């Protein structure tokens, strides 16, 4: 079983001191990359559904209004 | 819905046969289930209001537009197999007539003739002459009027062996004399066993076998 490389959380965050920024920058970009590509489609889907619901209600309204002036 | 008048005396089989054509443009159905058979010795005028899909139908029939469903037969064979034969016996003149403004009428005709079957020069000059462009053979087309440019394009009909003419609004820029002349040209071609499909808003009077297909009434009926 591979052994744990870091004795403490502080040492883990230091990531060997020299290239701390580099390593965490890459993993930050990786997190943004994963997060965006999962969130964006879901947001777009929610926006689409809201849009379609609004259009559906608008069409329903128009239909009912036209039916009214036919009956009246 | 459409009367399929086969020309009894010429007895030619159908040249172009479209069945169950369906075309949709920007989520709007232009026509669906459209059948059209054009036989030799027949002129078909496509009627319809603006935006009813006349131009789209012509472009589908001549193979420029492939965004449609349904199938088109050329002399009984599917168009895709018979493409080369179909193209060498068909001429299409659209809104944009295909006359380069920098070249002279002679050079334009020589090039468009060479795309089908090259011919010698004097037939070009004769064709231009017949359409009233006698002294204009070597003037750059940008100096010609719209009507004259249209005549340059129409003179392509005279020099090509094609038996099917597909013309989109051929009468638009022609003067009264030009209109009469074109109508006699069409009649001659149809009576000689050719076929013409055209769209025009002009009241057509041709002395040959012709019928109309109205896209608007078709849609109303459908």
């Amino acid at each position, binding site marked *: 079983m*591979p*052994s744990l490389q870091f004795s403490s959380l502080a040492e883990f965050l230091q990531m060997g001191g020299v290239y701390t920024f580099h*390593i965490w920058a890459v993993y930050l970009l990786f997190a943004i*990359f994963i997060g965006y*590509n999962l969130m964006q489609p879901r947001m777009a889907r*929610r926006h*689409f559904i*809201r849009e379609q619901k609004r259009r559906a209600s608008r069409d329903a309204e128009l239909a009912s209004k036209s039916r009214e002036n036919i009956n009246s | 819905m459409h009367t399929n008048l086969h020309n009894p005396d010429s007895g030619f089989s159908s040249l172009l046969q479209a069945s169950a054509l369906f075309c949709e443009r920007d989520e709007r159905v232009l026509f669906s289930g459209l059948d059209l058979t054009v036989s030799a010795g027949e002129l078909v005028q496509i009627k319809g209001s603006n935006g009813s899909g006349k131009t789209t139908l012509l472009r589908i029939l001549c193979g420029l537009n492939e965004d449609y469903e349904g199938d088109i037969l050329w002399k009984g064979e599917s168009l895709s197999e018979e493409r080369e034969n179909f193209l060498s016996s068909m001429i299409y003149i659209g809104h944009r007539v295909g006359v380069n403004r920098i070249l002279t009428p002679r050079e334009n005709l020589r090039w468009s003739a060479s795309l089908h079957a090259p011919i010698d020069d004097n037939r070009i000059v004769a064709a231009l002459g017949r359409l009233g462009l006698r002294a204009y053979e070597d003037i750059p087309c940008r100096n010609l009027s719209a009507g004259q440019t249209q005549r340059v394009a129409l003179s392509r009909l005279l020099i090509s062996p094609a038996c099917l003419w597909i013309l989109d609004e051929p009468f638009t820029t022609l003067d009264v004399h030009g209109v009469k002349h074109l109508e006699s040209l069409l009649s001659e071609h149809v009576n000689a066993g050719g076929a013409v499909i055209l769209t025009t808003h002009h009241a057509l009077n041709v002395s040959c076998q012709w019928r109309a297909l109205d896209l608007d009434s078709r849609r109303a009926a459908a």
Partner: protein
Amino acid sequence: MWLWFSKLGSPRWFYELSNKWLPWLYVAMMVLMSVGLLWALLFVPEDYQQGQTIRIMYVHVPVASISLACFPLMAVAGTITLVWKMKLADMVAKSVAPIGAWFTGLALASGAIWGDQIWGTWWAWDARLTSLLIQFFLFIGVIALRSAIESQDAAAKACAILAIVGAINVPIIKYSVEWWNTLHQPASDFSMDPVAPNPPEVWVPLLIMISAVYVFFVIALILRTRNEILQRERRSQWVIDLVSREKSV
């Protein structure tokens, strides 16, 4: 044959199928990603040359290798669109382009950061980075062409052609860039190819990370394709029912 094939690839069938598969894919991604990341960050031994920066490899290599797969996938989807006129294939092709650009972009960024410790500069005209850069331009070209053409079908066919032409050129570009680069500087002393010299405890977590990112790629592609399906089928009845079933958000 064409009708049968298009029935098989009908967008609605794909949408329902993805409904069933997505939960499992999410689970698989969660498991693989967490194991891969923990292993890579905590348990991989320090590299004698690069020190801790070897951990960047666990992001760069998976992302770069999958970004190379995006262009051929787009070309295949484009060919299916052109030959069999299958709408679903075009939707997939349209969704792959932005994902490919994202993958190539991250591969570029992580590669540059990783290379910085060797070359001392954020950007060096290393063969791999340069071919990734040109591949990124190709993706931008496809996306630009897609957005420039209004009508849906013309855009589909045009982008299919560009994807095919691009896919033919990607290996040529890659080869000529490597050929151009290797003759100038000696090959960079550490190799980015993972599996070759490294011991198992280095490349095992890498394979896990590669499969994790691959599952993520499939999920991202399915999500975008589903949106594309809804967008293009918004007038058909099954989408209208679906919208009415959704609780208003």
